[in-house]
Each structure stands twice: as structure tokens, then as C-alpha cells.
């Protein structure tokens, strides 16, 4: 991991100065603000079994599928297209350091986006307090849901980085990331909805289905239930994707 710190600071600096990051952040906050607004409206009309924050986070897949690919698509594909990756590889910096620096910079940016959502809830809580005797922003729900986002982000951002390693086209990298994340997010729900119990020949799917229930993980985290299985899933998935990304970069030249 030679020069990891240098590369990480460089990547973070690029992210701060890049118009792409700011445009994506604007899009993210607009999207989250709109979802939160509708959740608030719903809660103001009649009591709901969920808080507005819970309602907002239930739609976490929207920014995941629409915003995350925009964040990660340029990380390697743009450098490969411009040829600057080859130039970077002639320095003593290791490929692992390059991949991890890009991943961590993208993950920190992703986390920062979500942290940018907190002021919305604080502002609403400060001005309105409660509607229909329902707490508008339960901090435990918010912390739990954000923990889920940060933890699952390890895998989701790593998928984006891996997809960006596979092509010179940023658009194609974004599309690949979108499809993979859609498959991953939808797979859990789809497997859960299948009548696996009654199909004995599909019994082997029971175990993976219980691991891939992304929405279930969100509910658990938001309820303050910390299960080690999703942690293992997201961390090992992250290591697998970044390992493949390192191999992809090595194999490209």
C-alpha cells in the first residue's frame, strides 16, 4: 500500500474541486429532500406506522441506483481513456494503493452526501417538533439507517469502482454499476417473495436469500438490531470487488 495516503488526499482534493461531485451532490440532496417532503406530507395527513425518516430511507435504493453510479463511473474509466492511469503505474505507487485510495475517496464522498441529509431532519424537528403526536425525527432510526447506508456502501461503492475498472467509457461504467446494484438490491426482495418453502428443489436458495435481504438489513439497522451476517456480507463483498478491481487494473496493461 505504498503512497496510499498521498493518493487518498489527491483523490479527495479532486472530488472537492470536481464539478461532477457538486452536481451529483445537488442532485442527491434534491432527490432526498423531495422524498422527505412527501414523507412529511403523508405523516401530516394521518398517523403512519413509520416516521418520515424511516419512510425516506425505505427509498434508499433510488439514490443508490441513480446517484452512486455517477460518483464512481469516472474513477478508473476516465483515467484509462486519458492514458493517465498508465502514467500513474510507472511510479512506485502500488496498484492496491491506487484502487483503495479511489474506493475510499468515493466512499467518503458517498457518506458525506448522506450526512448532508441530516440538517433536513434537524431543521424540521426544530421548527415542527411533532405532527399528530409522532416524532418527526427519531435519532436512533436516523443513526441506524445511516449506519446501514455506510456499511452497505462498502460493497456498493466497491461495485462501482470495479465496474469503472472494466471499461474506458464512463457512461458504460455507470450503466454496469446501475445494473449490478439493481440486481443486488432486487435479488434479495425477489428471493424473499418466492415460495421457496413449498418448492423443495429451490431449497438451496433459502440460505442466500436470507443473506441478500437488503431491505431487511435496513429495517434491522434502523431498529437498532446489529446482526453480524450483513456486516460479513458487505465487508467480504467489498474485499472481493476491490481484489477483482486490482486484478482488472493489473491485467489491462
Amino acid at each position, binding site marked *: 500500500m505504498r503512497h496510499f495516503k498521498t493518493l487518498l488526499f489527491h483523490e479527495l482534493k479532486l472530488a472537492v474541486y470536481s464539478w461532477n461531485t457538486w452536481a451529483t451532490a445537488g442532485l442527491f440532496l434534491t432527490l432526498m429532500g423531495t422524498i422527505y417532503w412527501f414523507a412529511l406530507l403523508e405523516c401530516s395527513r394521518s398517523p403512519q406506522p413509520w416516521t418520515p425518516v424511516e419512510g425516506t430511507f425505505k427509498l434508499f435504493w433510488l439514490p443508490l441506483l441513480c446517484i452512486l453510479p455517477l460518483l464512481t463511473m469516472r474513477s478508473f474509466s476516465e483515467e484509462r481513456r*486519458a*492514458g493517465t492511469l498508465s502514467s*500513474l503505474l510507472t511510479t512506485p505507487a502500488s496498484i492496491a494503493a491506487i484502487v483503495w485510495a479511489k474506493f475510499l475517496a468515493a466512499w467518503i464522498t458517498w457518506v458525506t452526501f448522506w450526512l448532508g441529509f441530516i440538517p433536513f431532519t434537524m431543521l424540521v424537528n426544530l421548527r415542527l417538533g411533532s405532527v399528530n403526536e409522532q416524532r418527526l425525527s427519531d435519532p436512533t432510526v436516523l443513526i441506524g439507517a445511516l449506519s446501514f447506508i455506510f456499511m452497505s456502501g462498502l460493497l456498493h461503492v466497491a461495485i462501482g469502482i470495479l465496474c469503472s475498472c472494466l471499461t474506458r467509457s464512463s457512461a458504460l461504467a455507470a450503466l454496469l454499476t446501475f445494473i449490478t446494484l439493481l440486481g443486488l438490491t432486487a435479488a434479495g426482495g425477489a428471493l424473499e417473495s418466492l415460495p421457496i418453502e413449498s418448492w423443495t428443489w429451490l431449497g438451496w436458495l433459502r440460505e442466500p436469500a436470507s443473506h441478500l435481504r437488503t431491505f431487511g438489513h435496513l429495517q434491522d439497522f434502523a431498529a437498532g438490531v446489529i446482526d453480524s451476517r450483513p456486516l460479513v456480507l458487505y465487508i467480504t463483498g467489498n474485499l472481493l470487488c476491490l481484489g477483482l478491481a486490482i486484478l482488472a487494473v493489473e491485467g489491462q496493461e
Partner: protein
Amino acid sequence: MTEPTTQPVAAVVAELLTKRYGSLTAIEDLSFTVAPGEIVGFLGPNGAGKSTTMKILAGTMAGTSGRATIWGESVSLNPAAAKSHLAYMPENNPLPDDLRVEEYLTLRAKLKNVESKNVQARVEKVMIDCDLIRRAKGRLIGHLSKGFRQRVGIADALLAQPKVIILDEPTIGLDPHQILGIRDLIRSLRGQMAVLISSHILHEVEQVCDKVVIINRGRLVAQGKTEDLRRELLPNAVFKLTSNTPLAQLLEICLQIESAAKIEVQENLAGDWVRYQITIPTQSAIRENLAAHLIKAGVSLREIAEEHYGLEDIFLAATRRTTNDGLKN
């Protein structure tokens, strides 16, 4: 990092390097060396395998077989140590458009193991050496002209004071003034670092390099000092002379003084004057004073001059020889 305590015999060693893409062989059994402090021109027609060889030496591409070392360190077995002795400027010199020159060079200095306390000083030094300090220091690389971008690439190569520099077409797209500047800069590196430079401008290579390596169709066709290659590849000296002595008489005289001489008429001029071309072996004893021999033998001369063979002729002779061999095979 492994730091050899003694200076290796060769700064760059390419030994039987081969690179294949499926059935296509880009380079085959390529072997040459570059001594420490030596400037070597790496020549070949388009598609000969120059850039492939340079990429393998720089460690950005793996060879199919063979061995490459930089300052005694194997490029494949110990890439980090090899890269710490090497700076490589690829063809077209890719640079990030969204960084400022000083920012970029500072980042590169850090990545190239320049000590933190020396980074600023080294960046300033290379910007002065490459004439970037006044007009390009704070500008975005994406807004620079081709000439300034090339300078940034060379400044980057010089940053960490490497033992070996590999420059792939460093003067491509530059105007004559800029070429002169880059040429002087490269010349100033002689004795300090080994430089392997590929260029299509043979005149420039001849002026700057201590020796040349010529490849064609992925194979080595010649290597050595220009003078040695001239003797090897162009064994005849050619003289152009203008005389009014008839061809038959001139031929008789020439054969008397050099039995291997050949003569042919180039052009009939006004009056009885004719422009001839005389070819004699380079090693011939009369080469140095052919004019005196001819005058002594009664030939009236108006003009005589030996044709000078430049690197271009050597390059053409070397590549033509292998191309013809290839066609025969």
C-alpha cells in the same frame, strides 16, 4: 526498497524480450543494453515495436518472455525497486487536464519517493530547467499548448533524479525552437542519467545520442555508435565529381588507383563537363586523398565532394536490409 550499493554495468538491460498478442508478434528476442550516463536513440519504422519495448521496460506492460532490468532490478520480479530508478514519458504524454502544473509535479514528486522536505525545491528546480516557472507554473494543464505539455512531461521525468529515463517521442508536435530546447535539455543529462529516447527525427537523435538501437518488425537490426554502424551498413564511400575527362578514360584511371571502384554518369552538363559518381570501399587507402590521385593521373576536376551518410541513410540501410530478408523468407 532495494538499493544496489554499486553501480551496475548496464543501466538498462533488455534480454531476449518477446511480446506476443495472440498470433501477432510485436517484438521477438530483442536484446540491447544502455550504459549508465549514456544517451541511446531507439529507432524503428512505425509499428516496429518501439513503444511496446519501452512499455515493457517501464513496467506498464508485461512481456511474453525475456528479461528486463532497470539499474540491476528486474522489472517483473521487483517492479517497485525498478520503478524507483526509472522515469518514463509515454508517447503522447498523457496528463490530467484538471490539475495545475505545480500541483501535478508536487503529486508526482511525492509518488516518486522524493523526500517531503525536498519536494518543493525539486519541483521549483525542474520547472526552472524546463522553462515552466514563468509562464506555466499556475496554469491548468488542460489549457497548455502541446510544447508546454511536453515540457511538463519531461519535468515530471526529471523530478526524482532517476538513474534511467525513457522518453517515447519527446519532441513530437513541437516547433523547431522547442525541439532545440528539449534537445539541449536531454544533452545536459549526459553522464548524469541513462536516457533511452525514441524519435522519428533522426537528425535530432544523431545530434544527441551516444549510440543507437534500430529495430524493425520487432527484431533488432543494428546497434552501436553511428560511426560503427556507418562502416557496417554502408561499406562504400560515394564521391560526386564534375570533370571533362571522358567516362572510359576516367574509369581506366579509377581502376588503376582502386580496383574495386565503380563509376557512373550522373548528369551531362554544359560543354564537355559531366557529373560522375565514384563508389569505392570505405576502407580503401585512397579515400582520404582521392582528389589528389585523380589530378596526378591527369583528370581535370572542377568539383569533388564525398557524400555524407547521416543516420537517416544508416536507418534506411538497416531497415531495408531486414525488410528484404523478410520478403525473401
